[in-house]
């Protein structure tokens, strides 16, 4: 399996996700500088990591979405190459039009760094097959702009297509306003594209994929990808 992590000016979870990928894959992913247009032909997975690309100035992810490498990412995504965007990566993928909706400032305007619980909405994708149906996982968030917005018709479409990947929930899996940490519509914490080959999520699975850091609920996501993409 061949994976690459994109590095933008201001990315800061690039190393973190590379470490998690390496643990699951047994080899280091490629690190691709945002200016590169030479992307190996045989990539199976592209990860757009968290951080503050371009300082999150103007809008989170807006400037990175126009980086030279993103043209290549769009083409690969169209061909079905798996793309995972975490946190700032999710913002970049929505700005680039690879995922529906937009991420706005958190409801209470504050940066939130803490563990949250998520319901896993689908277990039939290459990203989530390692989880059990209805499983509630604990994964950290760390963001200022994680408030997922889609207008009513878009929301209906996303829900209808089963594009929701994760929702903010309580520890026992209850999805309610009380567990909606940032004001996201329908508690959405992560979405797929229609084909289920591109995933964007605000929570950081790479931050709880190592028992020494306090949990491993994020690890099955990387294991799933490896299992699905290893030929």
């Amino acid at each position: 399996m061949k994976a690459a992590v994109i590095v933008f000016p201001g990315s800061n979870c690039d190393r973190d996700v590379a470490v998690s990928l390496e643990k699951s894959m047994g080899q280091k992913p490629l690190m691709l500088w945002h200016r590169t247009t030479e992307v190996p032909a045989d990539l199976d997975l592209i990860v757009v990591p968290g951080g503050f690309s371009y300082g999150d100035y103007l809008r989170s992810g807006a400037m990175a979405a126009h980086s030279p490498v993103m043209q290549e990412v769009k083409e690969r995504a169209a061909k079905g190459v798996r793309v995972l965007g975490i946190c700032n990566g999710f913002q970049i993928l929505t700005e680039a039009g690879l995922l529906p909706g937009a991420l706005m400032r958190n409801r209470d305007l504050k940066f939130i760094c803490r563990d949250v619980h998520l319901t896993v909405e689908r277990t039939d994708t290459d990203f989530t097959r390692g989880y059990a149906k209805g499983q509630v996982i604990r994964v950290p968030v760390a963001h200022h702009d994680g408030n997922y917005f889609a207008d009513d018709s878009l929301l209906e479409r996303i829900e209808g297509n089963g594009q929701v990947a994760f929702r903010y929930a309580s520890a026992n899996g209850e999805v309610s306003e009380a567990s909606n940490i940032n004001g996201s519509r329908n508690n959405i914490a992560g979405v797929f594209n229609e084909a289920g080959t591109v995933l964007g999520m605000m929570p950081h699975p790479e931050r709880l994929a190592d028992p020494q850091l306090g949990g491993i609920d994020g690890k099955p996501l990387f294991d799933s990808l490896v299992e699905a993409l290893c030929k």
Partner: protein
Amino acid sequence: MSAITPEIVAQHGLSADEYKLVLEIMGREPNLTELGIFSVMWSEHCSYKSSKKWLKTLPTKAPWVICGPGENAGIIDIGDGLAAVFKMESHNHPSFIEPYQGAATGVGGILRDVFTMGARPVANLNALRFGSPDHPKTRHLVSGVVAGIGGYGNCVGVPTVGGEVNFHSSYNGNILVNAMTVGVARADNIFYSAAAGVGNPVVYVGSKTGRDGIHGATMASAEFNEDSEEKRPTVQVGDPFTEKLLIEACMELMATDAIVAIQDMGAAGLTSSSFEMASKGGMGVELELDKVPMREVGMTPYELMLSESQERMLIVLVPGKEEMAKAIFDKWELDFAVIGTLTDSGRMVLKWHGEVVGDLPIDPLAAASPEYDRPWEPTPALPVLTPADVEEKPWGEALSTLIASPDIASRRWIYQQYDHMVMGDTAQRPGGDAGVVRLHGSNRALAMTTDCTPRYVAADPVEGGKQAVAEAYRNISAVGGLPLAVTDNMNFGNPEKPRIMGQFVGACQGMGEACIALDFPVVSGNVSLYNETAGQPILPTPAIGAVGTIEDVDTMATVAFKGPGESIVVLGG
């Protein structure tokens, strides 16, 4: 030519005696640029003129100390060929005037102090003091400072893993924002600031220079008064995105053999960085100020020398490495300019489009930097409290009063606004006794904490100073760490008052005694004096930051009770 009047001298915060010394050193009347340089170099902030005598009494040595006070940050050996580099620094006055930007730029400054030595920053901490919770300004200041620390640290991508917060009315008009950074370097790849090599190029990198905070260094040393809220434009805006790029670019350059010396441009900007580099290396320096990357049109040499624009560094390169170095900074989209050369003249010569606009002797200026033995009086002992002095309350009520006290209540509201997990090595998050960060790729870890209980120091500076050190030591031990060394941030009132100076002297004495007893040397620190509002001083606050090592992170201890049936034991006495 503007003649230097006594008013101009006073505006620059120099006393008549100090100005006499300026005239002696120069052998003539200085021009305005030169006067500005003296004022910056001799400000309390840069010269430590009131505190030097007492700081020298602190123990600074141990076999594991690689570099003690005197450089940008302290360095200790942590084994496996690695070194921990750390320091704490205050940004009190700017944070009171503009809490978000003041705190943010404080974090930026201390990060630069650490990575300028070749260390990648791995953790931030912050020691905060605010006025009483019901003071009308407190809410705004707390939320601004916390958002600013988070806004900067989160964007740069360094986890904020610890800190402390107290509330007391003495900080109503003068909050304390002390930021600490811990970095990790290879012990054989540390960078210092002493310039060397006649003819070597002096290079400017980072952000462009604007008219930010001109006179900020002098402001940081002047007592607050009623109209200080009007001195607003001296506030600088931080750009954490540029700082992140600067860290990466510097790390990349540091992996080559191109750097002779490197120094961040701190509170006194180009003046102090170039002066310190030249003075430490016994060199002269010639700067072509028109080559400095500028953000605004019409800037003058005076402004360029005194600007406090953030996110800038000064580097002496090995000759011939300019192109290679420039390519790195180009890649990270940062400014890069050769702005001068080292000389053997022992003088700082400033040029503006080829014309000399300043010419000062380096050593005499640095050596003559005033040092005072300020009069001080010991703090009178307070009567000792007996149990009978304390009002009796039902236990439940006493407990809920305690838990509700702003000094004890949960800090989660604060640390949830800080990314404390980025970099993927935070083994113990805020909320415990000390933050624990794994050494990347290993099973070993660093433990770190900041501590001080100002009311103890006010009651008895010697014992309070001891207590702060002991508490930091205990917090490192409590997570299973071996405490190794401390940094400090001495926040006090006006040192010209013998009573305040007595608090400072007492705290130094207590800290020194505790550090000797615990084999816990002081390797870096910072002093912030004149923390007063309308003559009322803050509680004496010698904040202690400490670092230790944990050999096996799987043996780390945490505060949580783990399960039913376990024994609860009280140790110590």
